[in-house]
């Protein structure tokens, strides 16, 4: 008897008998836009030209382009339907809980979108004179001040375009500082629980990566760090709370170990949403850190970007911040200062992802100090509520006190041949986005669950119920889980075949 035949024998009703959050509905098919194109259709209309026409062939000669190949030709209604149909194939925070650990999928308020689209914000040119850019500079200044206060640091740059770009910038600050002290050093210490971007970033800057093992509780071990620390080590990159969602209670001791031998403490701020209003990295010894505005400060993930990764740091690193920085003149007006001889230079053109600054600041203003604190508390409460609710159903690999996320393992289920990815796929049938699978690497078969503050008790109960039902299914009919998802437009894709002979663009048949 194969597992397939068992599942095939089940009626849809059987398969979905425990699914409370979602039900199937008709989903529109939609071809690629190129497959809908035909000559003569158009969705554009230009205003009449108010200057003389030009002879482009005469102006451009041999470099004139006359054919745009297979670019589509479609009408406006087809465009609206095309992208609307595509959109319905996505799961989204707006549809329900999105418990991707480490990604912080929280509610993205619509007022943020509205204010980012105001004429003076959306249509401000980066090189327009400062006299007509005061509003934009004010947004940058106030956001900077808020983020400095929230992190407990001394200064900040908003320029990095995303979290990994912030890591890059932060480590460059470390390097430039150490160089100014006479020796940039050779190595960066990175815990084995770290995000993949940490070692990738250190390597990008020319540092050797030295991995430090977590202890038996999944925590940083000050003794191991002390043993690894010497005059060759520039910094340690620590995520706090770490990637198993636990606060590194020895963090200040680790800062002392680093500082005693002239190294610095870098904090990956991916999990800052567990600390806002409750504790400040600047107070527990962090020298430099990045923030992900698209995580903690609710700017939308948008299917994978844009992000924004400001870097906050202590006074000693300030001379090295990227150019330019926003400064206040004695008359209260704002200006961009480019005269920074010790600066690491630019890390991207212009001033960073300004549109994200507007949204993040709107989020901070909507919350205020009380709202920010309550947000953090609710995020931590939600994660602990899930931990309690799934206790006894899934194995908790490390038992330290959870903050904003909880990491289970598939140890029990794996014995029956069901892996974390299978559980994740089955969760889709129950109407949820999966949790993060197989990360952090220090938890074999990890289920990394981060509910965020945006979930009501009712939604959390539905999630817990779904996860319990799946645990039961693993015991009773594991093939239902290993073959999941069953209710989606497409089932699991053959990713191996896709990578072996990659088809990365459409071509006419």
């Amino acid at each position, binding site marked *: 008897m194969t597992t397939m035949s068992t599942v095939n024998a089940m009626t849809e009703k059987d398969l979905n008998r425990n699914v409370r959050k979602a039900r199937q509905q008709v989903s529109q098919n939609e071809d690629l836009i190129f497959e809908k194109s035909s000559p003569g259709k158009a969705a554009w209309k*230009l205003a009449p030209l108010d200057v003389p026409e030009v002879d482009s062939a005469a102006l451009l000669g041999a470099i*004139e382009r006359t054919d745009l190949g297979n670019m589509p030709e479609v009408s406006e209604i087809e465009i609206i339907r095309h992208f609307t149909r595509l959109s319905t194939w996505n799961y989204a925070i*707006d549809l329900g809980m999105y418990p991707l650990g480490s990604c912080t*999928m929280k509610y993205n308020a619509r007022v943020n979108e509205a204010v980012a689209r105001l004429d003076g914000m959306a249509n401000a040119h980066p090189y327009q004179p400062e006299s007509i850019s005061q509003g934009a500079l*004010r947004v940058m200044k106030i956001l900077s001040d808020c983020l400095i206060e929230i992190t407990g640091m001394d200064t900040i740059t908003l320029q990095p375009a995303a979290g990994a770009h912030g890591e890059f910038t932060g480590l460059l600050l470390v390097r430039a500082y150490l160089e100014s002290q006479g020796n940039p050093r050779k190595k960066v210490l990175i815990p084995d629980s770290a995000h993949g971007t940490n070692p990738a970033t250190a390597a990008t800057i020319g540092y050797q990566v030295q991995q430090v093992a977590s202890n038996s509780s999944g925590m940083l071990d000050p003794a191991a760090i002390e043993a690894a620390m010497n005059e060759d080590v520039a910094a340690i990159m620590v995520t706090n709370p770490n990637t198993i969602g636990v606060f590194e209670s020895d963090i200040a001791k680790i800062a002392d170990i680093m500082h005693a031998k002239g190294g610095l403490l870098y904090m990956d701020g991916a999990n800052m949403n567990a600390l806002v209003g409750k504790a400040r990295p600047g107070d527990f010894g962090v020298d430099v850190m990045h923030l992900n505005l698209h995580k903690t400060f609710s700017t939308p993930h948008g299917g*994978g970007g844009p992000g924004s990764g400001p870097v906050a740091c202590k006074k000693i690193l300030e001379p090295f911040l990227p150019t330019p920085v926003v400064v206040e003149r004695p008359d209260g007006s704002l200006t961009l200062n480019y005269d920074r001889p010790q600066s690491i*230079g630019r890390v991207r053109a212009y001033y960073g992802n300004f549109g994200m600054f507007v949204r993040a600041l709107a989020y901070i203003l909507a919350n205020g100090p009380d709202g920010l604190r309550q947000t953090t508390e609710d995020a931590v409460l939600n994660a602990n509520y899930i931990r*309690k609710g799934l206790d006894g159903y899934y194995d908790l690999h490390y038992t330290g006190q959870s903050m904003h996320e909880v990491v289970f393992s598939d140890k029990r289920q794996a014995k029956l041949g069901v892996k974390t990815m299978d559980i994740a796929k089955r969760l889709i049938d129950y109407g949820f986005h999966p949790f993060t699978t197989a990360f952090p690497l220090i938890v074999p078969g990890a289920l990394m669950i981060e509910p965020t503050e945006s979930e009501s008790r009712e939604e959390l109960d539905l999630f817990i119920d779904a996860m319990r039902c799946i645990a039961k299914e693993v015991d009773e009919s594991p093939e239902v889980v290993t073959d999941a998802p069953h209710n989606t437009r497409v089932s699991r894709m053959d*990713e191996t075949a896709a990578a072996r002979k990659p088809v990365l663009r459409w071509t006419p048949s």
Partner: protein
Amino acid sequence: MRYLPKSDSDRHAMLAEVGVSSIDDLFSCIPAEYRLQRDLTVPRQMAESEIVQWFAERSRENAEGLTFMLGAGAYHHYRPIVIDALVQRGEFLTSYTPYQAEIAQGTLQAIFEFQTMICELTGMEVANASMYDASTAAIEAIMMAERVTGRSGAIVARSVHPEHREVIATYAKYQGVPVSEVNFIENGRVDVKALEEALAQSKVACVLIQSPNFFGTIEDVAAIADVTHKAGALLAVSITEAISLGIIKPPAEADIVTMEAQSFGVPLAFGGPYCGVMATREKFVRQMPGRLAGQAYDKQGRRGFVLTLATREQHIRREKATSNICTNQALVALMATIFMTVYGKIGLRELAKQNLAKAAYAAETSGKSAEVLFPGAPRFHEFVIRTKADPVEIREKLLKKKIVGGLPLAKYYPELGNASLWCATETTSRAAMDAAAEAIR
């Protein structure tokens, strides 16, 4: 707090369920001396109406209703209404990176369409799902060329956007990538002879040019490719004005094309977020950074799309990855995809032609009272003029008419004297261009 879906009684019940008496018990893992015992000093909680009003005031401080004759890598074009109508759908706006393909086919198919359109426009065989912006895409192209050739270093044209060169310098300095520059000649184009000599002296991995370049001049890509390839280096071409591809032949001789797709329906937004592009030859795809969507099939043979070739990326390869890049600019790439779909095969050309005509008129009228620099080579929609008056003063004068004039170039190219860089797009009215010509007199 209105974003939080809980009553206090919910919270109490949940705390009881968890088995703690107060919320602070859940924070007891933070050593007491580091627990914040006060309110953060940030502005008080505001009503939505107050937030809208606050930003409307900042928007007005920024000046509204301007006409731009300013480009320099960021361009004011008309944005079709359908773009914002579609990208604000929650299923696009509030979804994550499409790692779970079964419930992310919308984003994945849109990326696949983006990649296809970028290939069509740039003449390249593969394009990735987007980069942060053109400046970071340019340095990623250099690093990619190093991986492909096994050589080190780059020669960068001085007519590449100055801020892009600054970004390249930052990366290069800390990675030990030797970067030198090659100057431009009287017509604004790269000094090919000097480039040839520089290539003979050092075995660099990459030559990076921009076309149309920072002055708006279109480079002789074929000639530059010729000397570059003879020296065994790769040619990377940066395009900061994507609309130019509507009427200018793509740099098909290049090995890597990077681009800023901001002009494709992305708001200026004071410099970001924008949409970097990277496209290349199929044979180099495994050395390419960033996310890629690829076609795939499920068990039932249904076509779909997945993120593919992930073994290049940081979450798999960690310190051995092709780049530390993690995010792309998905939502901004979606704006660009919708823009490219709206204008399409015919409209993009017509739009580009309007830009060409507007700039030709602006250069001609300005040229009556100022010197138009770099004659003798074709331009797209930007041009450099040298004026008697200080360009900063001209700018101030024009601002009174709500026109944002050209960028003074003294900071970047002091040898050009009172030079400034002007731009005209389909949004620049004849009246504005006439006013500008008047102001430079």
